[in-house]
């Protein structure tokens, strides 16, 4: 159970969102690098700045204006997080995942979460999509879970391994890729704390562990969504492929550019999965 003040914030935030007329969403969508354009496609959008919502961390990062957007996507009611929180920004897991509590409270029964990730599997190419079957959380620590956990039992629950996947959503995502004729792999995601990119020695280690993609997000959200009983689809867009034996300098601009080029793929998967009936 979250702490009292968080329950309070949750209640207030829910009221604020409902008062603004947001319909009950079927799908909660978290936009990572590369999926940002989707926000502009939402019909009859109701956008609420994070700063207006109690319980939302206030991002003081340069020019990062987060919004919660409700509306219809391909005719299906959705709620979308444009802008997310990361642990490397100094937020604990409770703060990172609070928006998910809100979206579940609003009625979303499934979550689609996306990210841009570094490819470790040498068979991957920049711009490929990886549908995540498992998430390994390397950055979880009791001190980083935050005040969402008040009892030892909660702590154990939150710190347990994450079985991400909903087989039906995973199959649907792969089907969407086949329909639209692009490659989608199934793989394992490793969440690191960041914000540094990996050293070559670290890439080699992660490869040995059987990791396919590595990034700095997604694990806390997936864990929370599973805890809230939501069905989860997690997608990585491969923004670069690590070649530890041929050092190439990672570049955040390149990551963003790769995201833009692959955006249509994520869009196609979201469109397909979003049409599935709710459980």
């Amino acid at each position, binding site marked *: 159970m979250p702490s009292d003040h968080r329950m309070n914030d949750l209640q207030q935030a829910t009221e604020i969102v409902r008062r603004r007329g947001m319909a009950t969403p079927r799908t909660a969508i978290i936009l990572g690098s590369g999926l940002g354009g989707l926000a502009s496609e939402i019909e009859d959008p109701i956008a609420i700045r994070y700063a207006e919502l109690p319980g939302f961390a206030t991002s*003081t*990062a*340069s020019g990062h204006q987060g919004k919660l957007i409700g509306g219809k996507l391909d005719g299906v009611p959705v709620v979308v997080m444009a802008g997310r929180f990361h*642990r*490397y*920004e*100094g937020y604990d897991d409770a703060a990172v995942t609070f928006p998910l509590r809100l979206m579940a409270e609003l009625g979303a029964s499934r979550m689609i979460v996306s990210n841009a990730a570094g490819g470790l599997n040498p068979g991957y190419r920049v711009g490929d999509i990886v549908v995540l079957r498992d998430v390994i959380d390397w*950055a979880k*620590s009791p001190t980083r879970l935050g005040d969402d956990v008040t009892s030892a039992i909660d702590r154990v629950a939150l710190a347990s391994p994450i079985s991400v996947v909903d087989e039906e959503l995973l199959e649907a995502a792969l089907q969407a890729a086949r329909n639209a004729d692009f490659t989608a792999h199934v793989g394992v995601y490793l969440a690191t*704390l*960041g*914000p*540094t*990119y*990996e*050293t*070559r*020695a*670290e890439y*080699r*280690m992660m490869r*040995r*562990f059987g990791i396919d993609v590595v990034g700095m997000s997604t694990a806390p959200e997936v864990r929370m969504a599973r805890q809230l009983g939501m069905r989860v689809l997690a997608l990585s867009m491969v923004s670069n492929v690590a070649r530890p034996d041929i*050092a*190439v*300098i*990672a*570049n*955040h601009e390149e990551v963003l550019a790769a995201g833009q080029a692959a955006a249509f793929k994520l869009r196609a998967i979201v469109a397909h999965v979003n049409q599935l009936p709710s459980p």
Partner: protein
Amino acid sequence: MLDLYDKIQGARAAILAQWNHKPRVAIVLGTGLGGLVNDIEIEASIEYGDIPHFPKSTATSHRGRLVCGKLNGEYVVAMEGRFHMYEGYPLKQITLPIRVFKSLGAELLVLSNACGGLNPYFRSGDIMVIEDQINMLGDNPLIGINDDRLGPRFPDMSEPYDQQWVDRTIQIARDARIEAHKGVFVAVAGPNLETRAEYRFLRQIGADVVGMSTVPEAIVAIHCGLKVVGLSVITDMCLPDALRAANVEEIIAIANEAEPKLRHIVRGVVGEAGQVRLA
């Protein structure tokens, strides 16, 4: 993280008030390796307690002063005594001195440490030039809102230890008939030493030596744009199938014994730094 900038300025001013020069090289002396200060023509010696925002060194055989002067004809600053995560300091505070050295105008950072050898071809008392690193601290000194004045949000780590300097350092050792290995350093939080199972694990993930320092300083040096030379003195061999209990006195004795070799190499690196264009 935004308050760091002012702290750096405060510490910088305190040092400049006692020693108004631009160091070319900053040196951090590890456990048992403080003897190098005897080679420095000391112009100022400043206790950490007299430098605002510097932590106090609590580790065994670590003094706590900043030595400023000339080594091999070049201006240097040397930390006699460093800070570790296991002392309870946040990584941001541990690494503050590195940012202060950058603000004083240093271009090269030499990090030294005493460490355990995992590579079975190493011998106790050997020197290893660090070629790459693995961060197993479970933490990162760059967590929090990034101050863009200090460095980029997502630093690239494809070459934390400048390859040219690795080659130069090996050459300096070779010229003096000192055997210097090249390898991967893994940092753990400590303060307990590793179990045999952990040594096997660390060896398997690709590490040649293990220690409790250096990685935070190297990350911050990369963040703020310093070139880094890393030197490890192997003070005990950690061979899991023939493991003896570690003895701190013995470790320090071996560090002291190997110290002249390290001293020679550091002197050579500083001399070369005076000759090559660093930027």
